[in-house]
């Protein structure tokens, strides 16, 4: 892949869900004028509800494996049942089932390791690569967007996140756009790790609650683990001034700067209902807070 050396990848995550990541990403995209956006919260993607992407290209996402027993070949020896560590081989009641096979794969429990297939003496188990979701490349009124939909109850969210990121990088490359904003998922596990490894900067969006503060510490530990610089934005900052101050002091002590504070405002919900970004919906108070965040963030990015 070509490398746009000027391109900067900024990942917006929060640890805790519901702190306002997606609303803030949409507003940053509106303010930056020149950014590619990637929705990497692939198992609960919401950014499209604000960005209203026009899909230009989509493809199926296939990954991993699922085992499948051929009942015609299976002799019901039970080796697969004994070896599976994921309880994915189900024993059927031979009295009820009309076919001659006593076992069946629980596709949701199947991890795709292939142990059953490898050790099946009759070669009756095949490993198939399922479609786990869809990848989209789109255009929005703020610029190009890469996004995806992970199939319900599917695995491999980390791989899909990587594909969305690569697609977004390709879009940035093709359009010569310098900023790439990544809307990450909550948590600190597989999809979050996939969304931030190798990124230039993490913007952590938190809230002044005991849970927000607790989860921010884990996100800070995670970004340190992967050596990615991090800045913080406190959303709903006036909900609890005391905790807001504590978060700021604790972050500073860790060498992390709070670059934005956004007031608690119903404009977040109202803009969402109107299907537009907060900075398009409102032009005072809360919108000013987000503009200040963007100014600080842009300075930080330029200094990278």
């Amino acid at each position, binding site marked *: 892949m070509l490398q746009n050396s000027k391109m900067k990848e900024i990942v917006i995550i*929060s*640890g*805790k*869900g*519901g702190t306002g990541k*997606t609303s803030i990403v949409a507003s940053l995209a509106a303010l930056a004028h020149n950014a590619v956006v990637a929705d990497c919260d692939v*198992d*609960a993607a*919401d950014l499209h*509800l604000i960005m209203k992407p026009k899909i230009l290209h989509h493809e199926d996402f296939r990954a*991993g494996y699922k085992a499948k027993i051929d009942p015609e070949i299976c002799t019901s020896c039970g080796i697969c049942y004994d*070896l599976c*560590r*994921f309880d994915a081989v189900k024993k059927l009641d031979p009295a009820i089932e009309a076919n001659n096979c006593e076992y069946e794969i629980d596709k*949701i429990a199947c*991890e*795709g*390791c*292939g*142990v059953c297939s*490898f*050790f099946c003496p009759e070669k009756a188990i095949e*490993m198939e690569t399922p479609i786990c979701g869809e990848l989209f490349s789109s255009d929005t009124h703020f610029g190009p967007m890469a996004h995806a939909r*992970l199939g*319900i*109850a*599917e*695995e491999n*969210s980390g791989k899909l996140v990587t594909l969305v990121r690569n697609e977004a990088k390709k879009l940035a490359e093709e359009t010569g756009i310098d900023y790439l904003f990544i809307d990450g*998922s*909550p*948590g*600190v*596990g*597989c*999809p*979050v*790790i*996939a969304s931030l490894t190798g990124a230039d900067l993490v913007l952590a969006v938190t*809230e*002044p*609650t*005991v*849970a927000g503060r607790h*989860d921010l510490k*884990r996100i800070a*530990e*995670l970004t340190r*683990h*992967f050596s990615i610089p991090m800045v913080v934005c406190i959303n*709903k900052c006036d*909900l*609890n001034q005391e*905790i807001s101050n504590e978060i700021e002091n604790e972050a500073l002590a860790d060498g992390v700067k709070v670059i934005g504070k956004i007031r*608690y405002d*119903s404009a977040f*919900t109202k803009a*969402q*209902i109107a*299907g537009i970004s907060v900075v398009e919906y409102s032009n005072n108070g809360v919108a000013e807070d987000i503009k200040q965040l963007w100014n600080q963030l842009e300075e930080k990015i330029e200094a990278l």
Partner: protein
Amino acid sequence: MRVAIASGKGGTGKTTVSANLAVAWSRLEEKVTYADCDVEEPNGHLFLKPSIEKTEQIGALVPEVNFDLCDGCGKCGEICNFSAIVVLAGKPLTFPELCHSCGGCSLVCEPKAIKEIPRNIGIVETGSAGDLNFVSGKLRIGEAMSPPLIREVKRAIPANEHAVIDAPPGTSCPVVEVVKDSDYVLLVTEPTPFGLNDLKLAVEMVRKLNLRYSVLLNRAGSGDDRVHDYCRKEDIDLIAEIPDDRKIAESYSRGELLVDALPQYELLFKRLVDSIKMRFKPIQEETIR
């Protein structure tokens, strides 16, 4: 009976509902466990303030190669579907963080050169908060896979006891691991476009898993009627609503339980226990018959 509290979207109030439901239930003179299965960002302890009696390190089994016994056949690399063991120039290299602990490499190794050893993926804490049993998992930072740890949290729930299980957000493997063997799922959402979009995903998930479920609407009144309309159209029970109230948000921010800080909600949560039991009962009777 095990009740899982889930939601597609993060931050809709899963932990608030789980912690308060568990406490209200235990105040009905029943033995209840609160289990925090949101192992990436566990928050239940911030509200329940349990005393922890036991902390257990959890290990996932990963291969360790004894090179004195290895004959370089390469079968371990062939069977591994996760690139967790790769054979280069007749020498197996392991990548433990990619390992799914299926045991394939050690099974296939004829000279018995591969031993499975535990690799630390996090901790499970058990204790109590008043009359409530408390179990919680915490994933080690940098660890990608949470389902093996979630399985250990579930294992730590005492059998024959009621349990309220706090699930992580989303609709993929960690959530499925939490809800799949629960008796009932309560989906928490909020009356907004994001709330509805992610509720629909969560409903698809519980339907695919064939689970009994209903919906709780949090911050009712803050948005519009789209969640009500959807539930009506899809014939889904909306069994409780918590109003949008800055007082609730402030008390939550301080880590207080609603049932204590704003006592009028104790009744709401006790009623919620009854409504869940009522909806679960018919199935129990069917099974007995």
